[in-house]
């Protein structure tokens, strides 16, 4: 059952990155859209994510519940040493979710919309940035459980060039996912072209940020290159992602939407696979060379087995309903546009 739980943990992190990431990305795209096109982008975004954003957000809850029920030592260590970035991420989540609801459900449309919009776009940018920083700090080996002073224990545990680079990389990936997704959500030819262009820009940015991550890792003394290419799975996954990138660029120019989404999702999945595979089953690397491992630092056997059953049972209800939700709104959005 432990492996079932681990698979669910990985899958919910992946789905949060893909679906929640595209959600955040939509806000980032809006942030970097010129004033004159912003309203149209906003409308497309709303149609695309309005019905599903609450559900997209749930993957984070699932991941966190799996962590605190199944792997309490990992959850509480991260909670203590990454308190500050977690808090910033939470404020981002609050700001973003409420601003999204406010701007669409406020009965009066006036200048307040500008306030909601600004909060929505900036929090869409800040939240994945800190999500990336948190992910980066988990593997950067800077969490020092012996640290005595405030800076070492609670600031430098998460703040360095490497984690910041990972943060920007995550943000760029979110923007890329959103842009690719939005191409298929509009029938307006100008908007389509705009989203294709956004997809290209954000893809270049993501590759550039990826390069920054490697550079920062080199200067911070983190053997990232070795981690990624030093094992077969990582090397194959990253090569497959790169090769699919070429195909993606070719198809982007033709604007084929369905297959583009699959390719973008594939690339992000491969990246997550690569970065998690090398350390598996370790999830947090500590400054003293220790680690927190999924196979060693889990809850009692009975906890894991009931958690596993709860997850299996839950997915019987959730997955078909979620699939039908996404399916029907895509279909209906498309149909509505066609008339």
């Amino acid at each position, binding site marked *: 059952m432990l492996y079932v739980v681990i698979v669910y943990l990985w899958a919910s992190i992946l789905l949060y990155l893909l679906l929640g990431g595209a959600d955040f990305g939509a806000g980032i795209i809006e942030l970097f859209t010129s004033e004159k096109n912003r309203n149209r982008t906003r409308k497309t975004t709303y149609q695309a994510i*309005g*019905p*599903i954003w*609450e*559900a997209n*957000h*749930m993957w984070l*809850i*699932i991941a*966190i*519940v*799996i962590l*605190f*029920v*199944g792997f*309490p*030592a990992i*959850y*509480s*260590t*991260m*909670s*203590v040493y990454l*308190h500050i970035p*977690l*808090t910033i991420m*939470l*404020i981002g*989540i*609050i*700001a973003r*979710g*409420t601003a*999204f*609801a*406010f701007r*669409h*459900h*406020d*009965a*009066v449309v006036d200048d307040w919309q500008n306030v909601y919009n600004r909060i929505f776009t900036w929090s869409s940018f800040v939240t994945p940035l800190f999500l990336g920083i948190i992910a980066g700090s988990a593997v950067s080996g800077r969490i020092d459980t012996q640290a005595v002073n*405030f800076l070492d*224990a609670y600031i430098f545990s998460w703040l360095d060039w490497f984690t910041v680079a990972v943060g920007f990389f995550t943000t760029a990936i979110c923007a890329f996912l959103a842009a690719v997704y939005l191409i298929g959500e509009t029938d307006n030819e100008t908007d389509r072209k705009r989203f294709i262009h956004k997809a290209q820009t954000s893809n270049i940015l993501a590759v550039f940020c990826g390069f920054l991550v490697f550079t920062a890792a080199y200067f911070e003394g983190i053997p990232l290159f070795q981690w990624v290419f030093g094992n077969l799975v990582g090397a194959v996954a990253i090569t497959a992602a790169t090769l699919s990138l070429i195909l993606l660029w070719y198809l982007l120019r033709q604007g084929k939407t369905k297959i583009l989404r699959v390719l973008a999702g594939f690339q992000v999945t491969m990246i997550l696979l690569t970065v998690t595979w090398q350390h598996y089953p370790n999830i947090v690397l500590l400054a003293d060379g220790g680690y927190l491992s999924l196979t060693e630092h889990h*809850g*009692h056997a*009975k*906890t894991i087995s*009931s*958690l596993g059953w*709860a997850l299996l*049972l*839950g997915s019987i*209800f*959730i997955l078909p*309903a*979620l699939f039908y*939700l996404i399916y*029907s*709104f895509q279909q*209906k959005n498309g149909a509505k546009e066609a008339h």
Partner: protein
Amino acid sequence: MNDFIAARSQMALSLGFHIVFSCIGMVMPFFMAVSHFYWLKTNQVVYKNITKAWSKGVAIFFATGAVSGTVLSFELGLLWPEFMKHAGPIFGMPFSLEGTAFFIEAIALGFFLYGWNRFNRWFHWFTGLVVGISGLVSGILVVAANAWMNSPAGFDYVNGQYLNIDPIAAMFNDAWFSQALHMTVAAFVATGFAVAGVHALMIAKGKNVEFHTRSFRIAAIFACVAAVLQPLSGDISAKDVARRQPAKLAAMEAHFETRKSAPLILGGIPDEKNKTVKYAIPLPGMLSFMAHGDFSAEVKGLDAIPEDEHPPVAITHYAFQIMVGLGMVMMLLSFIYFIALWKKKSWLRSKWLLNFFVLATPMGFIAVEAGWTVTEVGRQPWIIHGVMRTADAVTPMPGIAYSFYLFTGVYVSLALIVTFMLYRQIQMVDKLYDVLPNENPEKH
């Protein structure tokens, strides 16, 4: 402000904020389902408009409730890592099931809010009902997790170690039923009176009377039925607390001395130093009866409990008095409303009855907040009753006060914006929802 107090304040603030939104998100869908049902059955547009107007409120409250709930699930670790390290694997079962319920709620809400004119009418209605049911289930599960903190079960605590863990037994701890029942009914009372009060105010002002009268009726009936049932669940809770947490009961009642035929103390100012209550009205034997169903039974006082395990008496006592007092007022109002419905139809059009409901608008939520204060403050100094002290669970990170100020700022501004938006929503009823059928039948 030291870190421990700051952490407790932040947790109290977050919970106090979340609870309002989650109650509304849990209960409003049922009101919606009723008016939606009327619309499908009778084709009276006013019911469709009521459903839509309410659904806007639900969308806003759900979003706010969902994010504040997310914050809470992180705050458990951010503020009480030592607690979560041990408790997570034991009391986590309801949380993992709650994840499913909440997920379904989010999916169903997507269908409901965006599904007008897109699906079969009854399927659409059903998705709205699912929002309510799954919301209710997730509420019950979260309360079951809290109940475990009051009534730890499903493990053996031996020499500081948590052994023989059984998450299912932990979930079905002794307190889960009474707490979940009391909270669920409270959610209906609070939301019902809040919604009914807002509509009553609009009727009293003579605005969109048809729309508000029908809305009022649905909310008021829910509220009043729940308010009449609530004392029964309160009685179950009181007996349960007396048995499991005598210290909490003693603090609720400011009952300092163990004695037989203990009186129920109404009001009063507890003096914790001299262990007396000033200016209170004692009802002889009533506490013994309430706690043990026998007027002469012995009720444990705070003197039977070591000093360092006393909960703060004054806060717990005041909060309990407020909760019970408001509960009684709402129950009385409910009886008056039922009389009006059955015997005295003329009362229904009278100003005074409406004004009573306007006055009752915040009562339910004040009672809910007071009730949670009793539950949480009354459990102190324990975070896991009898096993782990709250002070031993707090995060080692210094400077929590700043985090508390930050979250206070965030929650205060959110509360202000939401209130402001509801005000605008109500102001716009004229334009958006109170449309005659032939004017704009396709309005949505």
